[in-house]
Structures are given as structure tokens and as C-alpha cells.
């Protein structure tokens, strides 16, 4: 059996080197001038983390093509957190001590980030994070003795809901036929859904809200018929489901099955299944989102990003994390440029002052305090609607690409 062990070792080596040769390396070639190192930790196994990294790479490539920052090229090192807090924390440690990055960027999951915060605090390097929406993360950051070095670009969960409250108030005012007095919220039973429901109930003050939890298709659920029936009995003005991408099809199909067509049918998954827009059931479904492909029609930056991404990677951006990753790097670069140095104090000052009138995500970026922390970037989500297979922006009206279809067309008419 010694042969067996030898065999394994050889096979291992062979397999891993074969694949490693074929796969993209995490570290770019060492350039002659000392580069500025950005360290990112994303869930590379998931579409969000992968495309976020791609957005970052695109920005880095563009900046380096234009001569870099302060005469130095940018170097991007991306590590996988595998959605695991332990792995994500170790990745931060590795980036800090082995790769000696200057600035931390990236991110997606809140649970992973919670484990990373103590290590980030220990090193105290400037961190511009585009992940983590949970208010628990905000509390953890605020509890640190000093968090000046921390910049958070992704809206917090309560900010997202605040945005939708504001948005619906504006929509109801502008389009008087739309009412929002009764809302039924179906939420997935994990942290994502539970937080979404709890915060909605707290912030939608004038609305009668009922809710019920379900098991998401991600965890083997996907049968929403009971919840949809209860929603139908409640007869809401708006039905909202807080879940994940795979739930989208089931929701629509089962709603049609039981004949449930409320005036407003709204879903809030982080992303949508491939080709969802093409199926007839998607028409007039409302959604919340930080970005939409249609913004390339109203925002020059969004358009530029869209076409540059397709050209470089041969695929379309599929999630808002793609432009968000891009903005992440551009923001950091602008800050470094403005400060003229990588020194912590001046860099923090400079980043605080950075203002983008337009970004790849489609709208402006400024830094201001949130409820508990000093440096918060984006604070709102948009309200959109699927129309003709496209995610049209309904609100904010400044970047709107279409007017709403109301009420939700009957199932028989599709």
C-alpha cells in the first residue's frame, strides 16, 4: 500500500497543478515600482463574490492603464471566504500579514464580516467595505474604541427599508391610484428574512403589516402555497416576499396556481434567476435593488461600466455587486489621489471628502454618518419593476427609466 500512498500524492500533485495552471492566479505579476496593494475578501464560489471581484479587476485595469495612482500601479489580491466566518477571518489575517496590503476592500456576507471585524480593528488599516447589511455589524463596529478607519459603502438593512418607505410615500403621492395601506410580508426564516420583516414592521408606520415565514428553496423549502393562501385571505394592497434568488420562480408559479394577484407583487431577493425576465409571469413584478442594467440608459458611468465589463469578461453583469466592486476600487483610488499619500490620517480625511456625482451603480456617492458609524456611503435602495424583461427603475424619479404598471395584471391575461 505504500504504492497507494505514492499514487495519491502523485495524483494530488498532478490534479492540483493541472487545475492551478488553468485557473487565474490571485496575485498579479510583481511590477518594478512598489505597487499599492488592495486586499479583498469575497465569496468567490458565489456569483456575487465572483462578479464583485471582476468589477474590482476592471477598475484596477482601467486605473493602471491610465498610469496608476501617485505614479504607482494598483495591485489587487482577492481571497475566498467560502461563506465561512473562520475562513474569512483567516483571509483577512493573511492579507494583512503575508501580503501586507495597504487597504482592505470587498465583502458580502454579514456573518462572515462579524468574524473579520476584530482582526480588522487590530490592524487598523483603512477598510472600505461593500458587504454586510446587518445592523448587528453596524453595532459591532460602533462598539470598537475607534472606527475612524472604517468606511461602509453598502446600505444597512434599516437604511434599505427606510429608503423603500420613502420611495413608496413618493410613489403613492405621484400615482394616486396606487395605495399602500395593507401589506403582507412573506419572509424566509433565516437571518436575512427575519431582519427584513422585523425592520419593515418597525419602519412602515402607517401600514397594516402581517407576515409569515417560509423555508427558502435554498434550504430545501420552496413550497409557498400555504403562505400565499394566507396572504390571499389577508387581501393586501402589496405582497412582499423576502427571500433568495431560487424562490422567485416558485413564488410566481404558485401564486398563479392559487389565483393570487394583489395590486402590487414585490420580491426582494439579492438577485434573480437567469432569464427570469423572459417568462411571462415576471411582467409587472416589483423589486427592490441597488442597481439595474437599465441604468445604462440614464447614467453615463453605469453605461461605461456595463460595456467595459462585457468587453473584458465576455459576460453581462448579473448582480449589483459587479458595479459595486468597481465603485469600491474607484472610490479608494480617488481617496488616495486626493490625499497624495497612503498615510492613515490624511487618507481617512481625503476619503471622507470624496464625492461622486455619478457612479457605476447609477447614482451619486457621498460619505456621511449613519445611525451608529462615522463613514457610510450608499444609503438607499431603488424601487424597480420588471417590464418587458427589463428591470425598469420606478423610484427615485431622478433616475427613473419607466412609469409603473399598475395594478398587477391578472394571471389569465398573460
Amino acid at each position, binding site marked *: 500500500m505504500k504504492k497507494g500512498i505514492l499514487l495519491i500524492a502523485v495524483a*494530488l500533485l498532478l490534479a492540483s497543478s493541472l487545475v492551478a495552471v488553468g*485557473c487565474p492566479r490571485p496575485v498579479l505579476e510583481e511590477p518594478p515600482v512598489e505597487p499599492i496593494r488592495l486586499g479583498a475578501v469575497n465569496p468567490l464560489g458565489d456569483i456575487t463574490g465572483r462578479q464583485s471581484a471582476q468589477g474590482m479587476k476592471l477598475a484596477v485595469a482601467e486605473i493602471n492603464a491610465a498610469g496608476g495612482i501617485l505614479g504607482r500601479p494598483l495591485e489587487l489580491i482577492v481571497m475566498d471566504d467560502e461563506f465561512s466566518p473562520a475562513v474569512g477571518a*483567516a483571509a483577512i489575517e493573511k492579507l494583512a500579514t*503575508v501580503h501586507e496590503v495597504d487597504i482592505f476592500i470587498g465583502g458580502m456576507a454579514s*456573518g462572515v464580516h462579524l468574524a473579520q471585524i476584530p482582526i480588522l480593528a487590530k490592524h487598523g488599516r483603512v477598510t472600505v467595505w461593500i458587504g454586510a447589511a446587518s445592523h448587528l455589524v453596524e453595532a459591532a463596529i460602533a462598539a470598537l474604541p475607534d472606527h475612524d478607519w472604517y468606511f461602509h459603502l453598502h446600505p444597512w438593512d434599516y437604511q434599505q427599508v427606510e429608503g423603500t418607505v420613502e420611495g413608496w410615500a413618493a410613489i403613492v403621492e405621484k400615482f394616486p391610484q396606487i395605495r399602500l395601506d395593507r401589506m403582507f410580508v412573506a419572509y424566509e*426564516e433565516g437571518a436575512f428574512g427575519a431582519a427584513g420583516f422585523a425592520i419593515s414592521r418597525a419602519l412602515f408606520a402607517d401600514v397594516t403589516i402581517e407576515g409569515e415565514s417560509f423555508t427558502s428553496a435554498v434550504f430545501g423549502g420552496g413550497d409557498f402555497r400555504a403562505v400565499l393562501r394566507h396572504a390571499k385571505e389577508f387581501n393586501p394592497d402589496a405582497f412582499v416576499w423576502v427571500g433568495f434568488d431560487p424562490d422567485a420562480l416558485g413564488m410566481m408559479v404558485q401564486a398563479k396556481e392559487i389565483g393570487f394577484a394583489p395590486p402590487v407583487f414585490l420580491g426582494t431577493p439579492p438577485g434573480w434567476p437567469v432569464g427570469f425576465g423572459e417568462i411571462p409571469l415576471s411582467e409587472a413584478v416589483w423589486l427592490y435593488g441597488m442597481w439595474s442594467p437599465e441604468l445604462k440608459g440614464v447614467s453615463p458611468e453605469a453605461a461605461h461600466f456595463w460595456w467595459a465589463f462585457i468587453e473584458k469578461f465576455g459576460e453581462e453583469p448579473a448582480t449589483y455587486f459587479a458595479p459595486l466592486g468597481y465603485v469600491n476600487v474607484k472610490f479608494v483610488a480617488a481617496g488616495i489621489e486626493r490625499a497624495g499619500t497612503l498615510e492613515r490620517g490624511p487618507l481617512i480625511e481625503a476619503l471622507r471628502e470624496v464625492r461622486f456625482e455619478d457612479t457605476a451603480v447609477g447614482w451619486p456617492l457621498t460619505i456621511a454618518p449613519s445611525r451608529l458609524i462615522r463613514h457610510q456611503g450608499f444609503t438607499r435602495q431603488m424601487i424597480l419593476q420588471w417590464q418587458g424583461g427589463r428591470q425598469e427603475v420606478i423610484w427615485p424619479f431622478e433616475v427613473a427609466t419607466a412609469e409603473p404598471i399598475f395594478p398587477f395584471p391578472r394571471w389569465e391575461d398573460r
Partner: protein
Amino acid sequence: MRNWRYIVYIVVISLAISFPFYAGVHPIHVATTILSLLALALSWDILLRGGQLSLGVSAFFGIGSYTTVLTHLNWEVSPLLSIVLGGLAAGVVALVIGLAVLRLRGLYFAIVTLALTFIFIVIVRNLTDLTGGAIGKLIPSVIFGGDPAMIYWLTLAIAVATIITSEIFQKTRIHFALTSIRNNEIAAKSSGIDIFKYLLFAFVVTAVIQGVVGGVHAQRFAFVSPEESFSLTFTILPLAMCLLGGSFSTLGSVIGAGGLGVLAEYLRLMMPRGHLAIYGLVMVMAILLMPKGIVGTIREQLVRRKTASS
């Protein structure tokens, strides 16, 4: 001479203890995680020696995590004491459950322990006022202020304690009791062994270990939630490590934990994307080529050589 064995032990232990002094911070993190998984793997193996395949490691791990956090937050217990309480809570739950569940054998026992994990998840998730519900709970600071060396030493101490426990189970009367239960229950019973007592003892002891490891984990990352703290990863990885290294032996789990842990790091380095596929491939091939685990295969080799030369 038998003394060389003790020299090897002393050298290894010295290297392990002094590790934080000569290794970088990242390797210390990785080593800490490996040591946690090692303790879990060994604790799983101990029960396996009695013929009971438990899939409930995550259940006790999670109980330990939550007890640690809740006692620390609500009763202002010190971190170390809260970890002890975590282990004790897991032990108590194991005692109560074991009285009922240890009557089962084989796959039935495995499935019930797995079902228990999910039941705990649902309970914890629904008792929102106590546990924070699906969103989870934070503790204000990491144990030892986040000092990686201290956390490493704590985990090392737990791993060593587990190794010693495993060796006690291997070298004393308990070993014979458990092995005979595993091999032939009826014979064991007829030779007067109180099967139930031994199994319950093993079950509670291993649950305490798993609870303590869970407690340390919660204190290390300052955060608990139903999905993270009861994650099946804490059952599956230790199981894989133990089986690949060689079951029914202390050395086996040590090798398995070290081997798989280092392999995972190596794969992460080489292939940022898709390394999990290779990980799975390695597991499959290891089982096919070394069905008795690394330790078992080496033992076989040594026996073969001995009989060949004689």
C-alpha cells in the same frame, strides 16, 4: 527502547507550544482552526469506538456556543468560565438525551442525532427573546482581546486534553468495554458489561468536549447564530478527518486533522476558485486507495513487513 516514544511526544508538544513564537499570525489562525477540528474529530472517534456513529456533533457544539454567549451576556460570567459552562450545558443535554437515544443502534442512532441538530436549530431560531432568533447575538469583545497566541494556546490545551481523554479511553478498562460492545453486543452483555453505562459515559464526555470547543469558537468570533453555530460543517469535517486519518485511534484523528487542514490551505492557495472540487476528489480517492485510513494502512504495511521478514 520505549523511551524514544516519550522523547517524540515531548518534542512535538514543545514545538506545538512554542508555535506562536516562530510562526506568523496567519499560520497561527489556521493552526487554531485545525486544533478545534482535531478535538471534535477525536471526540467523535471516542464514541465511534463504542459502535455508535453520532451525527450530532454540531448540536453539542452549538449548545456550547450559545450557552457561552448567553451566560457571558446575561450573567456577566467571565469568558473562560462561560466556556466551561458551555461544555457543562452540552454534557447535561447529552445526559438527558442519551438516556433515551442510546438505546438505538447503527444508522438509527445516526439519523436521530442528526435530527436533533435540526431540532435545536429550529428551537433556537424561534426563541427570539432569549437567543436573538435567526439574526443571532453578538458579544462585545473577543476573548483575550483577540490575541491570536492566547486563543491558540487555549485551543491547544483543549486539543491536548482531548488527546489525553482519548488515550485514557484507549488504555483503560473502558477500551475493552467499548470495543466489545462495538464488536458483539450480545457477547459483551453476557460477560457482564453494563453497555448502557459505558455508552452514556462516553456520550456525555464527548458532548462536553464538543460543547467546550463550541464555546471557544463563539468567544473567538464573538458571534452566534442558528445557521453558523449549528452548521453541519462541524460534524462533517471532523468526521472526514477522523475517517481519513484512521478511526479507532488517537493518532489517526491527529493525522487526519492535520492532513486535511493543511490540504485545504494548500488548495486555497493554489486555486482560489474551484478548490472544493479537488477537496472532494481527494476524499473519494483517499477512501478508495486507503480504506483503513492513513494510520490503518500504515499499520497494515508494518504488519506485512514484519510477517514477510519473519
